[in-house]
């Protein structure tokens, strides 16, 4: 909320929020910070285990399939598509928040609809990827892939992959549920009666956080 703030405003003199945001939004920020540390712990433990291994599977070899094209190797193409879908749905979510600030109910509905669609598209992609890896023999406790130098790989790779992308996918799933609830509430005019769409902003923060986490998951599993 970057609106006209008088110069020399005394934030800590009491009677108002020293953070200049609504209570619920501040709490959403604190929740997201705790969630960031949860994901951070998962990803850092993955990094520690990877650092303590002499070799590791090559992501370009593991993630090289794409639906429809069959056996043709297209390294990282599919996961880049997933990244693009998530960034795109983040944009539509910002648009929904912006429409909410203009109290434009119809536009909020439209953009929320696209965001939900994007979330579902991402989840479908992940379902396909998991199914595909499972058919190749990868699962918790099973790793069919060799290390990059041709040595035997441990199951650390698949354990971390399924745990972390699974935890992230669960966040996307709850984000979609939250967005659907927001959609229904907007549709029924709940926010119009309240006179503001701040709830959409909180859902938006959560949704962007899911996108943010994916950026790190993408780097740690597919690029490094």
């Amino acid at each position, binding site marked *: 909320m970057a609106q006209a703030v008088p110069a020399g405003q005394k934030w800590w003199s009491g009677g108002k929020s020293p*953070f200049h945001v609504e209570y619920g939004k501040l709490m959403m920020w604190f929740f997201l910070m705790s969630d960031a540390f949860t994901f951070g712990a998962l990803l850092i433990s993955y990094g520690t285990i990877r650092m303590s291994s002499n070799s590791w599977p090559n992501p370009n070899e593991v993630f090289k399939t794409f639906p429809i094209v069959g056996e043709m190797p297209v390294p990282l193409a599919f996961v880049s598509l997933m990244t693009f879908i998530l960034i795109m749905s983040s944009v539509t*979510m910002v648009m929904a928040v912006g429409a909410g600030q203009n109290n434009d109910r119809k536009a909020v509905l439209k953009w929320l609809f696209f965001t939900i669609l994007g979330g579902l598209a991402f989840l479908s992609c992940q379902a396909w990827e998991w199914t595909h890896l499972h058919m190749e023999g990868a699962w918790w406790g099973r790793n069919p892939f060799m290390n990059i130098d041709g040595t035997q790989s441990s199951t650390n790779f698949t354990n971390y992959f399924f745990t972390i992308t699974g935890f992230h996918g669960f966040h996307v799933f709850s984000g979609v549920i939250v967005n659907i609830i927001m959609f229904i509430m907007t549709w029924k005019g709940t926010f119009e009666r309240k006179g503001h769409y701040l709830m959409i902003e909180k859902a938006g923060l959560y949704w962007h956080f899911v996108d943010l986490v994916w950026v790190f998951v993408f780097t740690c599993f597919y690029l490094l």
Partner: protein
Amino acid sequence: MDSATTAPQTAHTDKHSFDTRLIWRTFWVLTAITIFELGIAILYYETDFLPKHILNGVFIIMTLAKAFFIIAEFMHLRHEIKNLIMVVGVPCLLFLWFVIAFMSDGVSYRHLRNRYDRYQYEQSKTPVKKTENHEAKKPGVE
């Protein structure tokens, strides 16, 4: 503080803070960075043109840049007042310690184990023979 009574006054002062152009610019920056990352990853896969650890450095910088844009523009943090930026940003500095401490712990563990557990070391350096199709070895399968 009752949010229902204080919220409307913050809601309508917000109007001009929303800038569609800025959002699309952020979108294009994020897309461009992702395509760039993908490009060098594939180039490395095809030609090994740079040492992997330099490449990893590039990837990490790119990732942090993307994270910055998502937090600053999409989550709107850059446009909040300094108190909020600080209360969110400063605790996240813990990640500096978190990453450095645990990564170096992993490296140290690898070195210790390679030195003192020679059997494990030999095993981890011996390439396994590429197993042929398991299907073909099943009895009754051509």
